[in-house]
């Protein structure tokens, strides 16, 4: 039995009449990279909202390291070691880049500043320390948002389409960081549309459609199945993918 | 206890409905502005008072009956609203809600104190249409009846305008999908000017009728904006008809609290209702998840 750090069971979320999640199960192996794909509106972001505690209107169960976190407030989930980024970047516009990072450190972390500087240096953004978040390009904002969640050394990181709107250079930097951190033991769950990235990074992939997990497979089954490149239509593609 | 006699209850209900209609006329304008422009106009009740003072001036200096002065005051305030939107309010559209709150708070401070400078702080009213219609044991005050019925008619006229006419549909389109509206060739800025002008004109109409019922001073707006907020939060922010129902509801609740308790507590009812609703549903009674 594999060691699962994040276990999602029967998560259901209804908005008015729309059932955005219809009982989703997810098992994330410690130290792995798990991909989530699916057409727009299939509930991927909603799933992250629920897991991270931003959306507390769901039912079901979310266990992080054996502890129930469904219904917990986001700051608490974060302090438990689960961090996430947003689909549309949310840096703090009137805070400097350095402040953007430091605020995400643990409260009594004396080394926060030096850690922030070190992270910025790693992605070659050190010249931007004192620049306001709003003055960064969109790609830089996404990267800063990613560095921000690293400040607390989380054990699980959820990334919601982290490469969308990012230029190829910064995109490469981002994936390198993910690989590097994963090598050090951090678990990732990534929503991503680019199948090359998925097959390159992820050990396991979930396909979500209309709020349901319609397929789940290993990296190889994803890589060899050409249909999964056209997942945006659900019905037929889903059956072939699952086959 | 005599208070529980059916006639008294009916009397209170009717009084509440009539006052509530006036609130509804006032609040639906505020909600229209919020729905279309995403601006909370704290100065909205000041436009009601603008209407009231204009009617008072016309009455005192030209002996114009308030019901007649509606035809002068409402277009005038419409024009003022049009210009004000163009020059001021347009700048806060699309900015954070708190910016528009602070900006219109500024407008409200200016209008209240301008009112104090011009009219001083004593209470005014226009004693017209005095007396009551007596039906059996019921007595319905004439000015309240006229004001209440007119308020309902005006509110529904605006509602029909929004529902039926091309221009009204354009207003609703801007409220629901500003971007799509732009693409469809709607002049969004003109629609906003129209919306704001229409809303403050509705407030002014309420103000004109107010002159026959209440005595008012330049500070009276504070009570009314409080009621308006309670109403639109109860009825759903941005929801035109919701504001109508909310207004009528508040009027009735106030009438009963005033009837059974004291008038001063009736004044606080709006606030307590507002706080209560916000506590039960921190985003108001109807969906407005998009309000940041």
């Amino acid at each position, binding site marked *: 039995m594999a060691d699962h750090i994040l276990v999602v069971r029967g998560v259901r979320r209804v908005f008015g009449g729309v059932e955005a999640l219809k009982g989703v199960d997810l098992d994330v192996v410690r130290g792995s990279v798990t991909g989530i794909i699916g057409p727009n509106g299939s509930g991927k972001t909603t799933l992250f909202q629920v897991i991270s505690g931003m959306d507390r209107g769901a039912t079901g169960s979310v266990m992080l390291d054996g502890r129930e976190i469904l219904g917990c407030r986001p700051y608490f989930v974060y302090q438990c070691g689960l961090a996430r980024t947003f689909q549309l970047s949310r840096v703090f516009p009137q805070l400097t880049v350095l402040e953007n990072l430091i605020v995400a450190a643990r409260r009594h972390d004396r080394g926060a500043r030096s850690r922030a500087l070190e992270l910025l240096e790693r992605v070659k953004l050190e010249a931007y320390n004192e620049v306001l978040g709003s003055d960064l390009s969109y790609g830089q904002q996404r990267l800063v948002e990613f560095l921000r969640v690293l400040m607390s050394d989380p054990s699980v990181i959820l990334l919601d389409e982290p490469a969308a709107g990012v230029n190829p250079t910064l995109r490469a930097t981002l994936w390198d960081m993910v690989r590097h951190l994963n090598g050090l033991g951090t678990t990732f769950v990534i929503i991503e549309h680019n199948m090359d990235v998925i097959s390159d990074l992820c050990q396991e992939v979930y396909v979500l459609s209309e709020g349901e997990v319609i397929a789940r497979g290993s990296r190889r089954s994803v890589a060899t199945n050409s249909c999964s490149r056209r997942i945006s239509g659900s019905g037929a593609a889903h059956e072939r993918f699952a086959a | 206890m005599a208070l529980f006699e059916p006639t008294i209850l009916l009397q209170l209900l009717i009084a509440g409905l009539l006052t509530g209609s006036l609130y509804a006329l006032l609040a639906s304008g505020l909600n229209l502005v919020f729905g279309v422009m995403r601006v909370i106009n704290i100065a909205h009740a000041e436009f009601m008072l603008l209407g009231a003072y204009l009617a008072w001036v016309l009455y005192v200096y030209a002996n114009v009956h308030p019901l007649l002065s509606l035809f002068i005051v409402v277009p005038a305030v419409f024009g003022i609203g049009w210009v004000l939107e163009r020059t001021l309010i347009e700048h806060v559209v699309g900015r954070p809600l708190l910016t528009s709150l602070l900006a219109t708070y500024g407008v409200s401070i200016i209008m209240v104190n301008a009112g104090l400078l011009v009219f001083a702080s004593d209470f005014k009213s226009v004693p017209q249409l005095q007396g009551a219609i007596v039906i059996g044991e019921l007595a319905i005050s004439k000015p309240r009846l006229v004001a209440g019925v007119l308020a309902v008619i005006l509110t529904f006229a605006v509602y029909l305008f929004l529902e039926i006419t091309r221009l009204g549909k354009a207003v609703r389109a801007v409220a629901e999908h500003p971007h799509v509206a732009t693409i469809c060739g709607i002049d969004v800025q003109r629609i906003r000017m129209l919306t704001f002008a229409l809303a403050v004109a509705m407030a002014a109409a309420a103000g004109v009728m107010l002159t026959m019922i209440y005595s008012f001073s330049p500070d009276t707006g504070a009570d009314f904006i409080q009621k308006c*907020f309670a109403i639109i939060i109860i009825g759903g922010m941005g929801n035109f008809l919701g504001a109508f129902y909310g207004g009528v509801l508040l009027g009735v609740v106030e009438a009963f609290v005033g009837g059974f308790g004291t008038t001063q507590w009736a004044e606080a009812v709006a606030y307590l209702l507002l706080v209560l609703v916000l506590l039960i549903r921190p985003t108001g009674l109807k969906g407005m998840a998009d309000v940041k």
Partner: protein
Amino acid sequence: MLSKHASLASAAVLVVILAVAPAVLGEYYLSFLTQLLMMVALAQAWNTISGMTGYVSFGHATFFGMGSYAAALLLPLGVPWWACLIAGALVALALSVPLGFLTLRLRGPYFAIAMLGLNEVARVFVTLWVDLTGGGSGITLSPELLPSLTTSYYTMFLIAVAATVIVAAIYHSRFGLELRAIREDEGAAEMVGVNTTRDKLAAFVLSALIPGAAGAVLVMYTSYIDPAAAFAPAVNIQMIVMVMFGGSGTVWGPVLGAGLVMGLREVFWAEFPAAHLMLLGVLLLSVVLFLPGGLMALFTRRKLVRPEVAAGPQERPDG
């Protein structure tokens, strides 16, 4: 921001001048300075919650009024004036904890709407509770109970300094950083571990204590209080305008704003109170529209020297 040395030096000069003022100034100017310092304290209080967290309070005069009434009720019972001051702060504290707990769950605009009516309700409440408060006719304090003008002045001076020191300490602390993150994006702040509920409540309670104490001092200095004066809308207006004018969320903005507005009032507007408030409205409107950062934004040398590293085409979000 001003450089650290410059602000410390100017603060020191200001404090020394204000400390020796009673020795030099006549009663009229001392009384003016007392009011000025009161406005500094009130502005800093509003700054603590609204400037720092972006939760705009239209009802902070309530705490001021509560502080005034607490002192006015206790002084005649023989309670020493300094204890009345503490009582004023405590009453504000006792009100702010449950109130903040309830209202701060509301996001920005709803909070503003909920606070807008508070002052009015407090006024009705105090007016109706005639047995305790004397209702609309207010409470007059006999002069022998009251501290001297110089004492009032120094007390107000201490409150203003304390308020400014609190704001400065918050501004430069981790707590302040968290509050600013809440102002920028509350959801994102919570998602990076900021306990927003606790932080907002702490800021709210701090911002209520100061007006509570200042209100207590004011009543000792005017020796009379009634509901209209204690819960005057003008107090709310002045607090907000001074902070917005000077620069909200900054340490020196409220001091600057209070100084300039009170100075202008003394020189030009004293004769016409309505015109004074009207001009404050114009000021607020202009600042909100044209100078959202307030005067402090003019001093701030924003670091716009953007490095040339990523001179390539700007990336755009693609969906």
